[in-house]
């Protein structure tokens, strides 16, 4: 009973204390309306604050949008990697590749296309140049992420990709593009037909079975035709029929894509043209096997590095935003010191003085952030168009998530930032504010 009485007494005292602390209770609707009127009344100050918030959320939003796009693009690039690749630094001889494939049976896909080799030759610092197979796609190449990164994808029109047995070299098979299919077989869909490459003997049974047809790749023709044309002439590919009737057909490299599961076509091509020429033989130390785990590790490292560098950039922007807004708000408080005194003199308690300032900044911040985000999205679209002109294709679509993040973070920053001047306003003495003394 005693405890109950004490508790009741404490509750009564607490209520009394709260009543004393709270002062007059204000009808919220009337107060909000008054705050809104106050915001609209001083257009110059509000416009300056508004512009500051628009600019800061715009910069912040662009940074986050770009981060989001490039992060997703990076993920996409890596997701299109084959499982195991060979990494080579320097000029690459296809013979080495073949040797490596022999020595390392678990290499699924091997670097070694003409275009890739060309690229390695031109960019000695580049460490990864894979080309390979992924479900429903033959992925092209990827190069330096920060500049002209991109993955060219060719979707399968007919058939399938290489299966495990083919990748391990147990069966010979090939995937060709539509143009090549038409030239060789007169149809886009020659699945199951056999082909052999030239100067393999007619009796040789190692023919390649067509297992898939891909769409003509836009990247292959436009980007590498010049390089290929320097060496191509024509290459003969024979159609291998059960009757052993061999008819040779010339196809132009500009329009042909011929992937085989052991790259023999390309190796023959290189052997013929470059063996003992420009390319040197690699030593083991110069070519390394790049496993899926390595790939995963590099992927994670790249993502982490990307996140930390971009994260730092975003943090710098946030800190700048906080400092800029704080300075602006503090100046604003100085300018409004008389107003604080007047409001207190005619009955406002400290809580409502704080709320007045925080709500004002919240209202301005709300609209400023929305406008900033809209502008940032527009600018981001311009960047995407410019990127595509520079051939730095972004294959991922912008999402709403960065906008939502920026909206909430920006408004939280504005609210937190407004807390400092609001506290200063709260502490301001009426006599100081009104300069009575």
């Amino acid at each position, binding site marked *: 009973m005693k405890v109950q009485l004490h508790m009741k007494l404490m509750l009564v005292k607490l209520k009394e204390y709260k*009543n*004393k*602390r*709270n*002062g*007059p*209770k*204000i*009808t919220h609707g*009337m*107060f909000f309306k*008054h705050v809104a*009127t*106050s915001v609209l*009344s*001083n257009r110059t100050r509000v416009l300056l604050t508004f512009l500051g918030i628009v600019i800061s959320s715009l910069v912040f939003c662009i940074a986050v949008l770009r981060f989001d796009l490039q992060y997703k693009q990076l993920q996409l690039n890596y997701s299109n990697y084959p499982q195991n690749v060979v990494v080579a630094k320097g000029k690459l001889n296809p013979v080495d590749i073949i040797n490596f494939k022999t020595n390392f049976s678990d290499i699924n896909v091997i670097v070694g296309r003409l275009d890739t080799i060309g690229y390695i030759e031109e960019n000695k610092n580049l460490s990864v140049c894979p080309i390979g197979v992924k479900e429903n796609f033959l992925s092209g190449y990827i190069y330096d992420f920060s500049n002209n990164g991109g993955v060219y994808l060719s979707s399968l029109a007919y058939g399938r990709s290489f299966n495990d047995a083919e990748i391990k070299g147990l069966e010979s098979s090939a995937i060709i593009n539509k143009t090549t299919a038409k030239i060789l077989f007169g149809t886009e869909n020659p699945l199951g037909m056999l082909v052999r490459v030239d100067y393999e003997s007619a009796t040789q049974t190692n023919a390649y079975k067509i297992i898939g047809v891909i769409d003509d790749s836009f990247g292959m023709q436009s980007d590498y035709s010049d390089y290929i044309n320097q060496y191509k002439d024509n290459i003969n590919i024979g159609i291998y029929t059960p009757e052993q009737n061999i008819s040779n057909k010339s196809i132009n490299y500009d329009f042909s894509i011929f992937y085989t599961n052991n790259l023999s076509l390309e190796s023959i091509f290189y052997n013929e043209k470059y063996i003992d020429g420009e390319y040197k033989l690699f030593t083991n130390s110069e070519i390394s096997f790049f496993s899926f785990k390595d790939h995963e590790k590099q992927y994670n490292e790249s993502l982490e590095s990307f996140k930390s560098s971009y994260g730092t950039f975003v943090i710098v922007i946030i800190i700048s935003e906080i400092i800029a807004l704080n300075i602006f708000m503090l100046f604003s408080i100085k300018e409004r010191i*008389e*107003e604080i*005194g*007047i*409001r*207190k*003199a*005619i*009955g*406002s*308690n*400290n809580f*409502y003085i704080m709320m007045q300032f925080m709500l004002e900044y919240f209202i301005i911040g709300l609209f400023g952030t929305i406008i900033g985000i809209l502008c940032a999205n527009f600018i981001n679209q311009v960047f995407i168009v410019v990127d595509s002109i520079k051939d730095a294709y972004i294959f991922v679509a912008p999402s709403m998530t960065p906008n939502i993040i920026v909206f909430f973070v920006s408004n939280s920053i504005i609210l937190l930032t407004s807390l400092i001047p609001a506290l200063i306003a709260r502490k301001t*003495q*009426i*006599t100081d504010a*009104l300069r*009575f*003394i």
Partner: protein
Amino acid sequence: MIKLVNIHKAFGKKIVLSGINLEINEGEFVCIVGNSGAGKSTLLNLLALFDLPTFGEYFLDGTNVYKNNIDRAKVRSSTFGFVFQTFHLLEELTVAENVKIPLIYANKNADVETRINNMLGKFGLDSIINTKCKYLSGGEKQRVAFVRAVINNPKYILCDEPTGNLDNKNSQEIIQFLKEEQKNGKTIVFISHDFKTVEELKNEGATTYEINAGQIKRI
């Protein structure tokens, strides 16, 4: 009733008010006159609960303000109305918005618009109800400040040199308003450095005090 007992106020080593004893009865018109630096405004700050004394006691309607730790903001919004020499209006807000603020803080939300319109009409301000205060003349500003002071129907109206920035015509008008409020039962505290005005008010029945070097005496 307001009662000050042995009020002292010092700023650092400087003693501004020294042993002030003052009683202001309900419905009274009290004038406090003094030269610049005599401590008039400091006294008004204490009366208005804008500031705390170094020591002394303040009884408002029988309640010891400092000992009972009453909510000063609540008292300012409901019991006091203020008229300042420099008007202290929110210049960017309209006349109506300025007058409305005390009602918001005192949570008097019934018939707000009607009340404001009636009051502004009574003081001849209905034509400028939606004008921003920064565009008003001195006389108009003081009338708006006066309406703001009385809109909550306060018991006490505290005026700090309300006629200090006004010409003779506008000064007389404000004094007339104050007299009318006194007739309606309000208690008026009128602080001024103008001995002539205070003398005139004394002749009309006001209780007058002179403050000098931090001490107050009835004149």
